[in-house]
């Protein structure tokens, strides 16, 4: 499990984090902080995914893989099926064909809870935040899988449930520090400006301590400064915690800057796969974005 620790300068407190592997992980991320990203084996692979809604073919025979600790971008014109792809990985949609393999286990279709338990978290293009709750509560929902107290313990609160709540509150506060949204923690999310809501969305996903983080257009609708902040957060997450990032993004400069490899989709089909440089030179990709000249 990936450890959530305070930003680089503060000391690590692995005893507050779940799992004995956490302490080891925390120690090993120090080598990652020197700037050398260790891209590992294939952690997630989709094979032959096809998705149809009635007559509309959203995805046709998509296959690609994602390596551990890398930043993988999915790009393509609007309507190419990028969000649908993420939805398949998450279990929101069930593809008609194909399979998804995560850490060696293959599934024909994913169940949302299973996926969350396996350590895959995501943000949404349209910000699926819980509008009726505060920032703190929204991010706390991300800790839900780890909160084990039963109904009776919670009803009484005093004792086990209170301790568990406090423990997870501490973890969430570290994320709030990381994302620099301390001043807003008690504000209902509906009242926050768009850029801050995006950060809360990210925070909620981070609270799950994911191994793989699926980001659906995390920088949509942001200005240059906000994009810089968000890029910094994404790279920090990848650097410090080793989280694998799968990123849908439209801003080419961001994609070329921060990703290790890129998949290109167009009309539900894969038209490019490789490093940013390779993809940039791919004639199919160029014509998909710019149109062919006759």
């Amino acid at each position, binding site marked *: 499990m990936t450890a959530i620790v305070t930003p680089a300068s503060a000391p690590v407190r692995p005893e507050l984090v779940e799992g004995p592997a956490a302490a080891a992980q925390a120690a090993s991320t120090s080598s990652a902080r020197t700037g050398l990203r260790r891209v590992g084996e294939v952690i997630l692979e989709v094979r032959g995914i096809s998705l149809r809604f009635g007559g509309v073919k959203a995805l046709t025979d998509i296959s690609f893989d994602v390596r551990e600790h890398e930043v993988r971008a999915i790009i393509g014109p609007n309507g190419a099926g990028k969000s649908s792809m993420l939805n398949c990985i998450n279990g929101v949609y069930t593809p008609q064909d194909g399979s998804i393999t995560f850490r060696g286990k293959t599934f024909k279709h994913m169940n949302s809870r299973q996926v969350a338990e396996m350590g895959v978290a995501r943000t949404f293009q349209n910000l699926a935040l819980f509008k009726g709750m505060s920032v703190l509560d929204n991010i706390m929902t991300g800790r*839900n899988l780890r909160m084990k107290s039963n109904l009776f313990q919670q009803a009484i609160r005093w004792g086990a449930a209170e301790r568990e709540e406090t423990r997870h509150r501490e973890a969430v506060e570290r994320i709030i520090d990381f994302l620099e949204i301390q001043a807003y923690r008690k504000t209902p999310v509906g009242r926050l400006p768009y850029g801050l809501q995006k950060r809360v969305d990210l925070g909620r996903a981070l609270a799950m301590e994911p191994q793989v983080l699926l980001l659906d257009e995390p920088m949509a609708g942001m200005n240059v400064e906000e994009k810089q902040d968000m890029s910094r957060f994404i790279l920090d997450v990848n650097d410090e915690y080793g989280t694998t990032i799968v990123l849908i993004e439209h801003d080419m400069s961001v994609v070329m800057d921060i990703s290790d490899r890129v998949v290109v989709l167009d009309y539900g089909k894969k038209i490019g796969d490789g490093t940013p440089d390779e993809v940039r030179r791919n004639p199919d990709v160029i014509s998909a974005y710019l149109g062919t000249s006759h």
Partner: protein
Amino acid sequence: MLYRENGQFKTTYRSDQQVFPILQDRVAIGLLLAFAIVFVPFAAPEYLFRAILIPFLILSLAALGLNILVGYCGQISLGTGAFMAVGAYAAYNFQVRIDGMPLIASLLLGGLCATVVGVLFGIPSLRIKGLYLAVATLAAQFFVDWAFLRIRWFTNNSSSGSVNVAGLQVFGIPIDTPVQKYLFCLAFVIVFAVLAKNLVRGHIGREWMAIRDMDVAAAVIGIRPVYAKLTAFAVSSFIVGVAGALWGFVHLGSWEPAAFSIDRSFQLLFMVIIGGLGSIMGSFFGAAFIIVLPILLDNLPYWFGIPIDTALASHLTFMIFGALIVFFLIVEPHGIARLWSTAKEKLRLWPFPH
């Protein structure tokens, strides 16, 4: 100036998480409890207990239960009356058929039976939402209406479905006079309010609210919609069932199925809407409002010297309820509870405007 948070720093998460983090709030609640427990029993006239305070307490409890389902988990239910009925009749059966059954045990077991029925009728909610669920809960309401009228076993073979209980006592202390009944109900209300508040601020409460706000995102975080909805139905029905048992045993003494008809369901729904969806305190506001309003309407004309006949008064009550529901839904969907908290926020800044 009085309602300042200045100087009240929290140094532990635990103190930040408490129910009333502001000192003035804690003082106010303490005073209110002292007033309710110590002062009212001595000062209030008997009529007040019977007509207002006891119904208020019991219906607040029912509204509390309903609020958990509708306000916190976003599942609409028009069958609350049915669950109250199940609680009441089940408690009756336990009390009457088992010799020496303690009263509190009967009431709680009545609640448990309501839980079972509630979960059963909550199962449709897993596949259907909002508007369709309303019709499904109507099925519960009418079915239960019929069951307690026609199935003789439930009512100890009474032909009209009406039953009665007498001689209530707890550990030898009789629950007979209005003051005793009031304190008995008050104890239940305080205990359940505390338990409910703890649940909604725990992780199950957040699960409920997540399902209410956006169930797809909730599923992606790993929340199981099935578990969340069924626990909401279960907890809600339990509280509503106990309230129903209290209503029959303590307030009415003897009752028939009509006491828990669809009008009761609508009444409770109105309490929750007007009082504030998703707010424990709102349940109390709503109950107070719905109980006091008809009495006001009955008596106000006399105070002003203009007599209205009772039929007209009841029509006017309907009209005002209906208009108020629409008003609140448009202007303040979070009900009186939101108006209250907005007022408190303004009070914090007073005398400054912002």
